[in-house]
């Protein structure tokens, strides 16, 4: 004990001496704040290794929105909920579909889910800016390496700005990375469309020139994905020549092709010839992200029905917040041979439980206990909740059937959409033959009869069947000026519209809602001069 005390005193003296020396010699060094276990931002944006790791970070940031579990995981489904193909049944997703949320400034859905889009995509844009500036200024880096970094960052930037523009219309685009010096500069106005599209074109043209079609790391931007995006932007600008040329180049490149059957499109990890850009997830793996619960939102709660237990075949865990409306169902039933009905969607939940099987039913038969009555709420509520068709596109086949947490890769862009873009562009240019050829590629793969007359309605209908619930429908309707009319005609279903406790959403719907409201908390930070989208005040 005594020795211990002595030693400690000695140690104290020693420290004191050291401390005194430090005080007088290099006080600054002594009080320096240091990163002891964190990566520094300086390293990230000023070295080749740092920049490459920052590029990987972009993919992760871009994925964040999809694994956002707030609001019962509704955030990545807001576009689907607001489309003309869905019926909102219950839960947060239905609040968006019936315009109680996300359609006014004051509602919680705007402050939460709508705001999440604004924040997430702007964050990606700023990090892209930092990478692009860093890579451009970096000296002594191999040119190929520099261009790869720049191309991926520019592709990601263009994609994010395009999302923001289509959703929020009045957006502010800045290519300088945010720094403590400029973070509080208040934008005086929105950025003009011309400026936005100039930047989108420049970024994507650079990316096309510098990215390969092939990558050993599935999930990164490739030339195919970027050309597809470039074609989408061209359509938005009504530059049909450009759109057609991008589509043609992509298709003749031979690097991508439709997979043989619709059953293969969403099978496994989506790493196949049709995928142009997808988000990657992997269970229990560092970097694999956290789960999304999209599938759970859009598969019915079939297991509540007697005779049916949860199974992957039936669509796994389902709550049935959002579903296919009658308009979508009718589109899919147009051609009796349409394979998509049972590969992309679930029309039949099958009896699989001997114990609770209702009398007169057989194992393997589809659940058919409920009816979508026009007027009897007791009837149609049960139908919607338990039996209405679901979507299989986000289903993780490896998940436990009772687990709503899925790690399924999420399809963002695929070649079937490229064909439809090509069809539209060529139709507008008067190349009906090529246009029909493109759309029929998609139809034939789905086992439906080719068509020989083409108009906008046919392209939109084919898009609904092929790409429904993948998140593109709302944009397409907005771009073609059809959003308001299609929603007034088809949104939700009539029986639901008339039984929502707050009244019929068709009475709430306004033309100006084609632009999302810029959330108030963001408007507050943008200064008094920043223009809110028309209609919201």
């Amino acid at each position, binding site marked *: 004990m005594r020795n211990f005390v002595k030693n400690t005193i000695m140690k104290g003296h020693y420290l*004191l001496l050291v401390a005194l020396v430090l005080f007088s010699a290099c006080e600054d060094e002594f009080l320096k704040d240091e990163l*002891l276990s964190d990566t520094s931002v300086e390293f990230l944006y000023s070295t080749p290794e740092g920049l490459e790791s920052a590029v*990987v*970070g972009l*993919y992760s940031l871009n994925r964040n929105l999809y694994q956002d579990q707030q609001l019962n995981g509704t955030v990545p489904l807001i576009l689907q909920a607001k489309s003309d193909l869905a019926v909102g049944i219950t839960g947060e997703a239905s609040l968006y579909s019936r315009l109680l949320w996300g359609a006014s400034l004051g509602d919680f859905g705007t402050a939460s889910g709508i705001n999440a889009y*604004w924040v997430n995509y702007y964050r990606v844009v700023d990090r892209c800016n930092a990478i692009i500036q860093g890579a451009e200024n970096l000296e002594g880096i191999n040119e190929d390496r520099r261009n790869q970094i720049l191309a991926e960052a520019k592709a990601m930037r263009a994609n994010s700005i395009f999302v923001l523009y289509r959703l929020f219309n009045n957006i502010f685009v*800045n290519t300088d990375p945010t720094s403590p010096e400029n973070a509080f500069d208040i934008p005086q106005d929105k950025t003009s469309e011309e400026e936005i599209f100039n930047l989108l074109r420049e970024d994507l043209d650079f990316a096309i020139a510098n990215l390969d079609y092939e990558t050993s790391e599935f*999930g990164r931007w490739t030339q195919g994905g970027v050309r597809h995006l470039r074609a989408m932007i061209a359509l938005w600008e009504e530059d049909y020549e450009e759109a057609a040329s991008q589509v043609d180049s992509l298709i003749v490149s031979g690097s991508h092709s439709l997979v043989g059957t619709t059953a293969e499109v969403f099978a496994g990890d989506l790493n196949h010839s049709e995928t142009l850009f997808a988000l990657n997830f992997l269970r*229990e793996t560092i970097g694999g992200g956290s789960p999304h619960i999209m599938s759970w939102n859009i598969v019915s709660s079939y297991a509540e029905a007697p005779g049916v237990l949860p199974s992957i075949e039936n669509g796994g865990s389902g709550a049935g917040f959002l579903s296919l409306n009658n308009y979508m169902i009718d589109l899919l039933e147009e051609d009796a041979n349409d394979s998509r009905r049972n590969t992309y969607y679930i029309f039949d939940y099958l009896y699989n439980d001997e114990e609770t099987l209702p009398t007169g039913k057989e194992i393997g038969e589809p659940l058919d206990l409920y009816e979508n009555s026009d007027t009897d709420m007791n009837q149609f509520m049960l139908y919607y909740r338990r039996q209405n068709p679901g979507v299989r596109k986000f289903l993780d086949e490896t998940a436990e059937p009772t687990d709503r947490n899925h790690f399924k890769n999420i399809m963002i862009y695929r070649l079937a959409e490229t064909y439809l873009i090509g069809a539209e562009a060529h139709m507008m240019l008067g190349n009906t033959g090529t246009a029909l050829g493109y759309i029929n590629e998609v139809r034939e793969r789905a086992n439906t009869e080719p068509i020989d007359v083409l108009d906008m309605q046919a392209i939109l209908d084919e898009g609904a069947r092929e790409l429904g619930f993948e998140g593109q429908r709302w944009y397409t309707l907005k771009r073609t000026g059809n959003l308001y009319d299609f929603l007034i005609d088809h949104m939700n279903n009539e029986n639901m519209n008339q039984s929502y406790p707050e009244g019929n959403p068709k009475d709430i719907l306004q033309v100006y809602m084609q632009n999302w409201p810029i959330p108030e908390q963001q408007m507050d*930070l943008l200064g008094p001069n920043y223009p809110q989208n028309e209609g919201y005040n």
Partner: protein
Amino acid sequence: MKHVLLIFLFLITSYLSMGQNTVTGTVTNSDGDPIPGVNVMIVGTSEGAVTDLDGNYNVSAASDASLRFSFIGYKTLEFPINGRSVVDVTMNDDISSLNEVVVVGYGSQKKADVVGSVVSVEVDDATAIPTTNVAEMLRGRAAGVQVNLGDARPGGNSNIVIRGNVSVAPGGNAPFVVVDGVPFDNLSDIPPDDIASIEILKDAASTAIYGSRASNGVILVTTKKGRSGKSTINYHGYTTTQSVIRNFNQYDGAQFIDLRREANRNRFTGEYLNDENIFSPFEIETIENRQFVDWEDLVLQDATIHSHAVSFSAGTDKTKIFSSLNYFDQEGIIPNSKFERGAFKFNIEQELTDKLILTGILNYQISNQDRETGGLNFTTTSPLARAFDYENELVKFYLGPSNFAVNPLWDQRESVDEAKVNLSDIKLNLTYNILPNLSYSLNTFHRSRNTNRGIYRTSQHSQGDEGINGIGVLSNTLFTQILIENIINFNPDLGEDHLFDVTAVNAFDQQNNEYNQLDKSGFTNDALGYNGNATVLLNNFRNVSQRRLLSYMARVRYSFRDRYFVEATARADGASVFAENNKWGYFPAASVAWKLHNESFMQGISTVNQLKLRVSYGATGNQGINSLESLGRADDLPYIFGGQTVAGATASSRLPNPNLKWETTTTLNTGLDFTLFNNILQGTFEYYKANTTDLLLDRAISGTTGFAVSRFNVGELENEGIEASLTSFLVEKDNIGWTLGLMFSRNQNRVVALTGVLDQFGNEIDINDTGGRRLSVGQSINNIWLPQYDGIYQEGDDIAGSGNPLAQPGDVRVVDQDGNGQIDSRDNVFTNTDPDWYGSITNSIRFKNFELFADIYIVQGATRLNTVLADGELWKGSINGIRTKYYTPEAPSTEYPRPKPDTHLHLFPFAVRDASYIRLRTLTLSYAIPNNAFSKIGLKRGQVYVTGTNLLTFTDFKSYSPEQNPLNGFETAFPETRNITVGLKFGF
């Protein structure tokens, strides 16, 4: 014995004849030693005398006159002469002694000479509650000290706020805790039985000596020390029973069914939906069988606390030793929650030579905190459930086979969460008395706290099942602190009229934190828990941080003739957490005091025993931010490409500020200390105003920048308040006594300035900070910013013309401030959540060997948003919660909304509720066992007591505690308990 003698003398002398005569006598203290300098006054005149060095006096007085004996530190006495010529007097120590020495920063001082705002806490009253949460012990014990319940679990903590929130920084409002001269990061690391005294420093004059950490006030704790003289051994043990308290009811099964049916009623036709539509088949089964679950009843159990404390004290002229052993064991009312602590303390003071004194304090503690599994909720869980099957085994899927929510009891059974803490402190102090009035002291302190936490969720737990095969989370935190201080004290002798002393300090403080975490899964079996072998590494973290502080400080104190006091302090602090060019902060303070009662013109005023006026002004700082906020930091964001992990990173969403500097609080304090009417009434009034500038404001940044938040110095915050504390010794007799204490505090917090950016109307724009607060000039920083609740829409109301034209009767109505027919943030108003005032009333009544102590705590004008009432799921009938008489078309309520199948709008404004309360916190009855009962077995002291804690609470706020919401996120906040304690103290 002395008293008996006195009365005897008094009786004898009273027979003597009346008339003018000379009276003599001796004044002694309770140990029989003479007291020199006692004022002996003839009542009703200005004549009198003062006792000499031997305590003798001599006055000439009428034989029917009375004599008053007064001396600071003793109770004033009055005796009629009754014709006697000798009146000997024994004076007793005044329990409210002014002669008492209090601990102040870097030293101690006579309480009577204190110039700043310093409160001493009555330790015995404070430690009457059975807990390790020392912050809770300070509740209601000192004016201006507000305690907010943090976590009521065993081993939990509470937050102390002294004189309001002066800072907007996250760790910016916790007072600085100094124990035996060294900073402590956790007040609850002190076993209550070891505490000798607690002083709270409130104004800048007293705290500026602690400079940059002092703006929230300082709590000085002194632990027990050995004394020279006889050895003593003391024991204190108690046992406590805890039971849940709440002031709301949940829905029982039948009521819950009604709620669900009502919620799903068609709003237009009034028809109820079939049960099949709104209940799952399983729920229908429970309804048919009328099997409902009362979750609270199932989960909670009464629980006990045991505490034992033994201490030993011995001393000679040269060596003084104190040592203690404490053991505390608390079970929580939630099974699996527990806190256990063993503490050992060894305290030695050794005179090495005439000039060298070595003091050493050694603390060693081991504690073990067990927690229930996360997400335990027995407040809002549906009663339509089955917890046990027919064999009385737990059921995993308690809401039926098709609902995969897991029985909360199941996960409880399948989880372990334990944290083991090893704490060791070594404090060594070497004092060198170079000259009688010059000393140098070297203070060194080393602390190491190692926290090992292990969590295991078995392969049956809902997080560890379905192929995961158990999840283990292992974490380890090592906190180390090194403190070295050089202290010089100089008090030259400048003659009788002058007292002068100088203290200079150079200090260096370094704190390091190292954190490791490993998440594992795929355990071969559950037998070894988190110690088992896992096959999958899910995640690993490493976090290392350091903060350093370098300080220089000087203090000068001067007093003249015990009347005029001046004190000045200056401190310079350099902190590593600030930006490169802003490391240093300078904190000066000055104060003056005037003891009016020592002035000659006050001598004749016999009702005033003591009167002291104090004024102080000074600056203190705040460094309550995390390190690295001035540096750019990246978050790791790995991604998966084609099934392979690839490392990735991005700049964190916190934008660094390379110019970050100190937050400075300038405080003006004025105080009046008084003792009146023969020391019967004593008290203090204080007024203060504290202005904080260069606020360490965490400000939300526009989303367009890609960042969420940055901290920077801007704006000004003001706290202004008054405090009063009064103690009245109403009855003070041998066999009976009654002491009444009152404490009152009022603080107003107000934002004075923010960024200076103006909106279109020329007002400063509001700022949202990351804590979700909205800061607005003129408003308190603790506020709720929501539309104003305006009742429930009724049949016949003008709904179309209101702020929510789509509303139906039974919906929540809020005020449409701008009348534009819609409700958005422009309709929001501010509600201050801080209390208007808080205070306490303590009564201590003594009768013979019995003592009754009662402590009432009052908080008025506080507001809180009740998150359970605000939950839309409750009004859908999909979760349980606080039961109300909700609106139905048949019985329209004006207080509560109508249940409906969707989330109501404006439930948040509706849920803003008054959280004022009055609570009988402590009621103790104790009995001191008479000394003669023990003499044979050598016991010196003995006491038994019974204490009730939180016996009665009056509040409108529906929760387990008026200071907390029923839920903390999705899980039930650990409930406060009502406690009954039986304890025993004795000493040899």
